């Protein structure tokens, strides 16, 4: 009969025996050993979630909380493998961590940042290499995976742009307008602004009474009746003089533009 040192016996215990003993004794040292024994399971599962932008060590930590909960509740007599029992608890804890951090709200920003980093790296590498870099080269430069780099280039741009159909509300009473409705077209009247100086000169060339009618009607916003009263002539006469003055102005303007 060979005698074994008790400590050796201890390390050779399999998980099942440890679980039975822990269930009976609730000895925290036994629990520590069970946690250490399943560290690789937590690391493996946490590793599946690293591309969501949180450090692996943080995920391993929250996953370990799930592991400890699973160890405390595990009943080895039920015939379920511990890894099968613990996996939903560990993954659940990791997913809750993302949910509590409102991670999905930060995704656009993270991708935008990565997108900008990738764009800078692309420029730097272009001038260094004398040619556009490959995705692999950009990924290596910014320390991200190829998949992440592609995603950042693709989605980072998408998040940067706002749909023209997106609704904009400027006050609560009015119906929301789409962004497209705020986008201006080229204002052709602006192109004619240079011609206003010429208009001044053209008005100067009118005979005094016509000039007065134009100024009253179009710069002082007076009605034909008001102008008629002011100049002490009939409204019909105002109308006739106005038409003649406008024709004159048009002629002067055409001459000065051509």
């Amino acid at each position, binding site marked *: 009969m060979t005698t074994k040192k008790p400590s050796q016996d201890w390390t050779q215990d399999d*998980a099942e025996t440890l679980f039975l003993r822990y269930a009976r004794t609730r000895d925290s040292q036994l629990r520590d050993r069970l946690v250490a024994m399943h560290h*690789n*399971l937590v690391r*493996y599962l946490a590793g599946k979630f690293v591309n969501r932008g949180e450090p692996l060590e943080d995920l391993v930590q929250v996953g370990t909380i799930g592991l400890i909960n699973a160890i405390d509740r595990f009943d080895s007599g039920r015939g379920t493998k511990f*890894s099968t029992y613990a*996996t939903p608890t560990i993954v659940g804890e990791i997913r809750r961590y993302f*949910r509590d951090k409102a991670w*999905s709200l930060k995704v656009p920003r993270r991708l935008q940042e990565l997108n900008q980093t990738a764009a800078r790296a692309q420029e730097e590498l272009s001038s260094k290499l004398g040619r556009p870099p490959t995705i692999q080269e950009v990924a290596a430069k910014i320390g991200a995976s190829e998949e992440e780099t592609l*995603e950042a280039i693709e989605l980072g741009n998408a998040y940067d742009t706002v749909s023209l159909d997106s609704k904009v509300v400027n006050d609560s009473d009015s119906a929301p307008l789409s962004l497209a409705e705020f986008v201006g077209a080229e204002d052709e009247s602006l192109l004619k602004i240079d011609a206003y100086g010429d208009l001044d000169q053209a008005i100067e060339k009118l005979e005094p009474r016509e000039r007065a009618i134009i100024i009253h009607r179009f710069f002082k916003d007076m009605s034909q009746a008001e102008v008629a009263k002011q100049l002490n002539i009939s409204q019909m006469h105002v109308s006739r003089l106005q038409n003649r003055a406008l024709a004159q102005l048009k002629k002067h303007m055409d001459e000065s533009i051509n």
Partner: protein
Amino acid sequence: MSESQSDTVQLIIPCRPEYVGVARLAVLGIASRMPFSYDEVEDVRLAVGEACTHAVERAGSSPSTIQITSTIGARALLIEVADNVPAGTEPSVPSEEAQNLAEAGVDQQGLGALLMEILVDEVKIDSSAAGTIVRLTKYAPD
């Protein structure tokens, strides 16, 4: 999209590790067609990645392919990951990850399936001499 209409996207990739990322990227775009939250999109992507990784590990160096068929419906996203690696094929050299897990008494193959079940609503796995088909279903939120 009307109740009955659905769109289908198909992707065939070599059954090799460097193409799993290609599948994951495609699935990111496909799952984004559904009214899923970003977390849900990521969950689908992870599940498809698991199915592909499983196929890649079994295929070893044999020239195999993975066909990914995604059906974007009004109520659910169905993604079929079909490989032509005969069932029962075991990886010639277990990965470092698999070795670590084996030490902890964990069966990795079962774990991959379990992880997929946590991430999507339905998982159906059919293995035969022709290969393995993993059907993943994720329902649209009500």
